[in-house]
């Protein structure tokens, strides 16, 4: 089956083409079926490839399949090729599996939308590019997928393009991504110049020999690669597009901005682990930014009132955790969290979508409340997702987040653990705040909206249930402490290089590990209790606290004014420069020159037009003058 790995991205491509050309002529059911079936088949093939991979010996689980020699230019060669190894197959399964669930959900959610076919066209195209990204065997093909998912993100965020805020958000996402992509591209150039090739296997095999550990080149390459990752995965400083991206339909937020596209940066760092391990400075930067982003975004999430914004900042924060893991060379933990996060974040977003669907599009949590009795399935699945993200045993998020915190402590240092722990506390707090404000307490729902309150149809709730199951049991494959129980780690670790510092460090005691696990659970429970106290027991307390601690509250409620700062520092001057180029360079200089030439011609013609008097006699005079001159020449100059 591994030979047919090319089918995995092919099915969504076919789905995209069919819906693109025939979507408007088919019934909504047919369009949805084609799109979902394409992803379903993709997932099936990924799973079969995974089974094939399991049958192989761990050391040989790295197969390349070249489909086509794409570019051959002098020494530069780029192929369309796929790399099947534990990392890429995990990504492929997560992407196709979660996409499949979300496609089915979308069929119900977007049912009344008039642009139904366009939605599924874009969605299939997105999955195609994402699968290319995770299965590529060289940097250029990965970059094609990288740009492609950015493009589809633009399409899907600005799906309701008639709304100005939506199309602005789409532009912002694409442009901010592009800034990161600039770094990625420079990194690819550097890699080619250094290694003469851009294929993963060749580069990673040659790296230890060619580059010195900590040398300038490898640090530069990895920093530039990480710059690309910060753009795509919404880390500081290129995260500002993600909260705005909530303008898109909720399933889009679930798929792209929670489960798949934003994880591309984490995948890329994990894929290039050999290079990052050789550049201690860069990997430290990755960890610092990851940790900083985790706590920064969590703090903003505490004060957001839009349910989707809470989840958006939560995503940024959780991605920070993944980068923190990669930054302390715990790549398996990072990918593990990527997988569990895909489950519970998609669940949370889809649940939020279900709530919005029931409330006719309302997303302000201050206008929700006491929804639990009306929407039991949505409530219970959302609660499971929240328990998972807060890191409560035995849900999936506990295992992955705990592993990250443990590795941060043992491989990174106490400070990293502390930042992660504080962020975990905040995570539990703001997530349960969301649950309590939405589903518990007194109903603050508008009267009109309350009339239409209903649980969502099965097409939407069944995916929620599936994701809830995955969020519950998904973590068990990474069970720590007991020897041989951490299947996930076993499967993935051959892919990742281990920095010498880590390899030399001794084994930590199981006792310490269990203690830290208990500490994590205690922190999470404290967060839940805080949210309970603030939003159930004493509902007026949050407002009083906001009044008392005005400045901190204003800072987080206004997201630290980062958008405004960026506008002032970057966007403003750029726009002023563009206006300068327009008004002065283009209008005055360029147009002036072109028009000036025309003016000179016009001036000349003003002079010469006087010859044309319309008077026959003056024309005859001209003829006479000419004849006289010619005759005179012949009479006086004959040699």
């Amino acid at each position, binding site marked *: 089956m591994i030979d047919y790995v090319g089918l995995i991205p092919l099915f969504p491509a076919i789905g995209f083409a069919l819906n693109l050309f025939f979507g408007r002529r088919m019934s909504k059911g047919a369009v949805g079926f084609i799109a979902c079936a394409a992803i379903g088949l993709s997932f099936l093939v990924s799973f079969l490839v995974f089974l094939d991979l399991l049958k192989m010996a761990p050391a040989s689980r790295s197969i390349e399949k070249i489909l086509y020699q794409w570019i051959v230019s002098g020494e530069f060669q780029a192929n369309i090729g796929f790399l099947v190894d534990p990392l890429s197959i995990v990504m492929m399964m997560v992407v196709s599996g979660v996409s499949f669930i979300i496609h089915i959900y979308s069929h119900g959610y977007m049912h009344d939308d008039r642009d139904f076919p366009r939605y599924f066209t874009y969605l299939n195209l997105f999955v195609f590019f994402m699968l290319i990204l995770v299965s590529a065997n060289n940097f250029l093909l990965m970059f094609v997928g990288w740009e492609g998912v950015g493009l589809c993100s633009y399409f899907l965020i600005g799906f309701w393009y008639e709304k100005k805020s939506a199309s602005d958000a789409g532009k912002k996402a694409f442009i901010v991504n592009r800034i990161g992509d600039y770094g990625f591209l420079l990194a690819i150039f550097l890699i080619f110049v250094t290694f003469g090739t851009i294929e993963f296997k060749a580069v990673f095999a040659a790296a230890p020999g060619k580059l010195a550990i900590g040398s300038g080149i490898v640090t530069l390459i990895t920093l530039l690669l990480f710059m690309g990752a910060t753009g795509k995965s919404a880390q500081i400083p290129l995260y500002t597009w993600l909260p705005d991206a909530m303008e898109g339909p909720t399933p889009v937020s679930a798929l792209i901005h929670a489960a798949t596209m934003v994880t591309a940066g984490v995948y890329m760092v994990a894929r290039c682990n050999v290079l990052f391990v050789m550049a201690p400075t860069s990997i430290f930067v990755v960890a610092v930014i990851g940790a900083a982003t985790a706590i920064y975004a969590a703090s903003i999430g505490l004060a957001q009132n839009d349910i989707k914004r809470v989840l958006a900042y939560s995503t940024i924060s959780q991605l920070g955790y993944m980068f923190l893991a990669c930054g302390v060379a715990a790549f398996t933990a990072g990918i593990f969290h990527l997988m569990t996060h895909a489950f519970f974040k998609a669940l949370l977003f889809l649940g939020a979508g279900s709530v919005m669907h029931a409330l006719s599009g309302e997303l302000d949590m201050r206008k929700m409340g006491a929804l639990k009795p009306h929407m039991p399935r949505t409530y219970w699945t959302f609660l499971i997702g929240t328990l998972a993200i807060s890191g409560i045993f035995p849900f999936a998020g506990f295992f992955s987040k705990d592993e990250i915190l443990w590795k941060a402590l043992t491989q990174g240092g106490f400070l990293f653990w502390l930042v992660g722990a504080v962020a975990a506390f905040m995570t539990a707090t703001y997530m349960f705040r969301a649950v309590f404000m939405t589903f518990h307490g007194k109903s603050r729902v508008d009267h009109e909206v309350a009339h239409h309150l209903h649980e969502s149809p099965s097409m939407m709730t069944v995916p929620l249930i599936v994701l809830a199951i995955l969020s519950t049991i998904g973590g068990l494959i990474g069970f720590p402490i007991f020897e041989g129980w951490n299947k996930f780690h076993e499967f993935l670790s051959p892919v990742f290089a281990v920095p010498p510092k880590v390899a030399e460090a001794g084994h930590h005691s199981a006792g310490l590990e269990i203690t830290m696990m208990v500490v994590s659970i205690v922190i999470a429970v404290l967060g839940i209790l805080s949210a309970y106290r603030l939003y159930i027991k004493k509902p007026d307390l949050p407002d009083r606290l906001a009044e008392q601690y005005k400045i901190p509250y204003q800072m987080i409620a206004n997201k630290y004014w980062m958008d405004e700062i960026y506008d002032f520092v970057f966007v403003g001057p750029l726009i002023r420069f563009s206006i300068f180029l327009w008004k002065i360079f283009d209008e005055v200089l360029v147009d002036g020159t072109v028009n000036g030439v025309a003016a000179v011609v016009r001036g000349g013609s003003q002079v010469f037009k006087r010859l044309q*008097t*319309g008077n*026959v006699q003056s024309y005859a005079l001209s003829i*006479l003058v000419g004849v006289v001159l010619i005759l005179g020449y012949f009479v006086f100059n004959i040699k």
Partner: protein
Amino acid sequence: MTSLMISSVMYQGVSLSSYLVLSAILFTVGVVGFMIRRNIIVIFMSIELMLNAANLAFVAFSRFLNSMDGQIFVFFVMSVAAAEAAVGLAIVIAVYRTKDTVNADEVNLMKW
């Protein structure tokens, strides 16, 4: 009549240069008339005058070089002059019908 014919035979006759000078004077008069006069009919008359000045020069040369070529050419010139006069006057009539004038200064639609 016969006395006049006898008197011309007895003298040398008029020299070639006299004819050419006359032709030149007629031509110049024609040119100046063409330039100066406003009435289109008078302009046409000046054109005819120029043509006939040329005819005179042809005939004079034919007489003094004893060649019939000049005379034959005069026939051509005359027929061309006649045809051109016919066409030209037709144009003048058309112009008159449109612009209600035969003043050349007023026919200047092609002025810039």
